[in-house]
């Protein structure tokens, strides 16, 4: 019994030592290489729906390409977008500034992963695709009470939504603002959009 207790105790101490080593090395790592092995210099190609909406409105020079099939394009597409389905776009070369988008991020992500070396620095991808254009720009949810520091951004969204013929739904929650304050330079690719997901978030 006594031996058992002793070995149990030393096991606990060994586990505590392991936790200490892993945590201390985590601390060192976060000072030496805060971003870890994620390549921080890798360019994130994202453009947000708000920036893109402004660019279209101001008639800036760029090619906007819808990567979905013709049927989806006919049903709904962003103003001034051209339809070049993914398979065709994969083989094409683009000279000028190009912005790609797909339904969510799936096709645009695949294209970027395959082509980002050959496409050059002028290529961008719409963060969130048609889904976010629809949900976050045309028909966004915005809070009734807008905190001072978010006013500029929110007014811009309201203006753009009206310009493109959308409609705003005002809600109690402030959480909806977080989307617009993303730092796209720090973002990975967003998750897959699911229409009938069985995984509700939260508790």
């Amino acid at each position, binding site marked *: 019994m006594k031996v058992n207790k002793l070995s149990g105790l030393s096991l606990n101490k060994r*586990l505590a030592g392991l936790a200490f080593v892993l945590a201390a090395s985590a601390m060192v790592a976060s000072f030496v290489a805060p971003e870890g092995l994620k390549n921080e210099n890798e360019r994130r190609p994202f453009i947000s729906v708000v920036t893109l909406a402004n660019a279209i409105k101001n008639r800036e020079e760029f090619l906007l390409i819808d990567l979905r099939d013709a049927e989806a394009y006919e049903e709904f597409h962003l103003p001034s977008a051209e339809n070049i389905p993914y398979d065709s776009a994969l083989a094409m070369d683009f000279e000028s500034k190009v912005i790609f988008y797909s339904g969510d991020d799936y096709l645009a992500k695949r294209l970027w992963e395959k082509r980002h070396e050959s496409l050059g620095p002028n290529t961008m991808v719409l963060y969130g695709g048609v889904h976010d254009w629809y949900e976050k720009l045309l028909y966004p949810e915005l809070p009734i009470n807008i905190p001072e520091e978010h006013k500029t951004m929110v007014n811009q969204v309201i203006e753009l939504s009206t310009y493109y013929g959308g409609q705003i739904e005002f809600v109690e929650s402030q959480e909806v603002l977080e989307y617009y304050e993303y730092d796209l330079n720090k973002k990975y690719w967003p998750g897959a959009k699911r229409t009938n997901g069985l*995984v*509700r978030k*939260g508790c």
Partner: protein
Amino acid sequence: MTKGSQKQPQPYWNPYLCGIGLGLVLLTTFVVMGRGIGASGAMTSVVSVGVNAVSETHASANAFYAGYLGDGTVSPLKDWLVFEVLGVLIGGFLSGVFAHRTKLKVEKGKSISRNGRFLFSFVGGIIMAFGTKLARGCTSGQALTGGALMNVGSWLFMISLFAGAYGMAWFVRRLWI
């Protein structure tokens, strides 16, 4: 092992080892699902379905139930957390069977009657439900999940939980000792 000791409940495992096991389960959940574990959420789904069965208009008019009922295209019970809690029931049962701890029993302190224990267990459940719903999660969904993700609200919840329980413990000591 002697024949007599086989039916005896086995001792509990080292809490630190169980904690590491639970922590790895939680980590797996993050990596595979992009969410944490939970318990009270599944109970809320069950309640929302019940309310919806009694009166659909009443349930859909209430933002709280509506959040758990979804858009009506799939059954609200076909939900990740509901299945996870079914797993908890099975896992708890299996562990209890292997350790010879599964039998009908009432867990109570020495100085309280069975019916008294039932009453307090019931009332405690009601109070706890209010706490968990106000805080948007329970010990699993907030304290464990949010604790590991260093979520500000989860740590506030956890500290308040221990404060509430320690503060109340003296007043209800006759329930337990």
